[in-house]
């Protein structure tokens, strides 16, 4: 699904990723954990294709395609989804318009008919109910005046609609209380199937109690310094980054 080999990336001439290798197979859930400044968010942005992040070495392939050659929207339509740590507010664009435009961009890319407003509303209502999202949120401008929890629910709603092959969750747990965390985790888990993969990027073990990973990697100083199973997250929780990977502290 995702093959990252010896990936090096810099921003403003500063090297942040210093040789990251990671392989995620279909149906797998991986977690990348790491202290602040370890390169976690940079990795998610490099995967999604944000401007300003320059790949200086190595490779990153998604479903066999070289991601570095693809625009962010091409990556999205190929089945990649980044749930943002800080979802953007977009005044003047209602959430419904945003969601429908996004979904139709995907449908068009797949050669399917675009959904009309009525057909779309039916589809989105089913998803919002499952995620405990009030219909009122759909009428409001994207993320404007949303609480932290609502913004993250909106991210998961987008994911549920776009049904990506690989979802990258960047610090999705930040700013969430326990109830919101459960709703978000349920939404992510509902999409898990043998053909879809998930990459959870987080500082804390907390989220991994709800989205249980198959593999856990510790990112420190721009490299993956240790990999293991779900138990690695528990070890981190017990002993801290300094205890598990002294070089990271």
């Amino acid at each position, binding site marked *: 699904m995702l093959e990252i080999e010896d990936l090096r990336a810099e921003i403003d001439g500063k090297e942040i990723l210093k040789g990251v290798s990671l392989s995620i197979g279909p149906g797998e859930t991986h977690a990348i954990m790491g202290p602040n400044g370890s390169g976690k968010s940079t990795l998610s942005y490099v995967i999604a*294709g*944000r401007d300003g992040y320059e790949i200086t070495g190595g490779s990153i392939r998604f479903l066999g395609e070289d991601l570095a050659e693809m625009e*962010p929207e091409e990556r*999205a339509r190929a089945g990649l989804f980044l749930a*943002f740590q800080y979802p*953007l507010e977009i*005044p*003047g664009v209602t959430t419904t318009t945003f969601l429908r*435009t996004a979904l139709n961009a995907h449908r068009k890319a797949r050669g399917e008919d675009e959904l009309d407003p009525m057909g779309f509303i039916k589809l989105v209502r089913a998803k919002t109910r499952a995620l405990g999202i009030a219909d009122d949120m759909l009428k409001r401008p994207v993320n404007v005046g949303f609480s932290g929890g609502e913004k993250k629910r909106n991210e998961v709603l987008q994911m549920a609609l776009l049904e990506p092959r690989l979802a990258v969750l960047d610090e999705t747990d930040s700013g969430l209380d326990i109830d919101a965390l459960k709703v978000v985790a349920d939404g992510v888990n509902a999409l898990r199937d043998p053909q879809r993969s998930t990459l959870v990027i987080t500082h804390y073990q907390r989220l991994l109690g709800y989205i249980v990973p198959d593999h856990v990697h510790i990112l420190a100083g721009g490299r993956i310094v240790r990999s293991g199973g779900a138990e690695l997250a528990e070890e981190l929780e017990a002993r801290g980054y300094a205890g598990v990977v002294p070089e990271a502290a």
Partner: protein
Amino acid sequence: MATNATMTVEEPAAIAAGRAAFRADGPGGAAAARLRQQGLDRFTALGLPTRRTEAWRYTDLRDVARTAWTLAPAAVDPAQAAPWLADTDADRRLVLVNGRFRPDLSTPDLPGVTATPLDGLLADGDGAAAAVLDEALTSGERPFLALNTAFLDGGLVVRLAPGATVGRLEIVCLTLPGGDAPAMSHPRLIIEAGDGADATLVERHVGPAGPILTTPVLQITVGAGARLGHYKLQREGGETSHLATVLVQVARDAVYDGFMLSTGGAVARTEVAAVLTGRGGECRLSGTYLGRGRQVLDTTTVVRHAVPDCRSRQVIKGVLDDQARGVFQGRIEVARDAQRTDGYQMNRALLLSPQAEIDSKPELEIFADDVKCSHGATAGELDAEALFYLRSRGLDAERARALLIEAFVVEVLDEIADDAVRQHFTEIVTDWLAADRADHGATAERGAA
């Protein structure tokens, strides 16, 4: 060595031509002749503004000054005017061609509406009409209002009956030159909404592509308890200089809901001076300007709170592409007695090209102590993070840009209270955005090829 060099300033071509075209006598009898002469004297005293004139610092009129303008013909064949009226509502319109009211192109006998040619009123010795024009001439330093008065020809007085619910009424100002020579027209309108009247006015300015100077002056009074929606649409040709003055008086408990959409012309300025003269009055003065190429679009406003307990609100948003320039000068004045004034003003500009420019000068002048006034101005490019967010959801870059631009500007159209007008203006805005996009798409493809 002399430190002060003596310079001989050559008279601009526009002034020489204007002097040659001037004739005090004409329609409207002695009163009109007197007004025209006073208009010329006033214009001569004020002179053509340059960028050294504070009120005109940001708007360059050198092209206007160096052009030898001729008067657009008074008589125009209705068949020539017809194509320009295609977008208008034939059942609810009043039409001026080259400043002259055209009953043959206008809807007769609209309920609650009395439309009378201004020159007719002046010729009949209507002292009130002359007084309104006199008041405007001495009200401030407005050279193009003076010029408009100097070439007073025809004009229109629209009276809305007290208590009448008039609905939508379109006023169309069309300039049609007689030939290829640069032509000027000077439309003059007096609009009086009687006490308790309720009306929605759509003011359209249209005209062909050649060099045109137009100086529309509207004097509007909104009577006690009346509501007047006034929605101006400026979509003239690419070589038009549109230098408009709007003077508004809002009486007790009246609502003036003004909005300006400006997309046309080479230089287009609307200067609005609104005065709240009665308690409980409300003045809304919003708008949007969409500029590309080398257009200069100027919105200059003064809202004066002369009495207590009035509200004013202004939201002006602009989108500027290419080398277009926007100017926003907005002043809120609060007189010493105007306690409990509630004033709000916001100007936001979106710059789509590195060469586009906005000059914004918001001012507050407050002499009362118990007031709530705020103003602000922002200018910037599209938010790169928001663009990335949309693209990361599968929208291509062009679609994402279009969505963000549209979101930015369409929001301001919510200021228009009238649904039908808002929808109409929204269509014009989205058409403009699509055309701009198509143009840049073509440029990008040429660049890539």
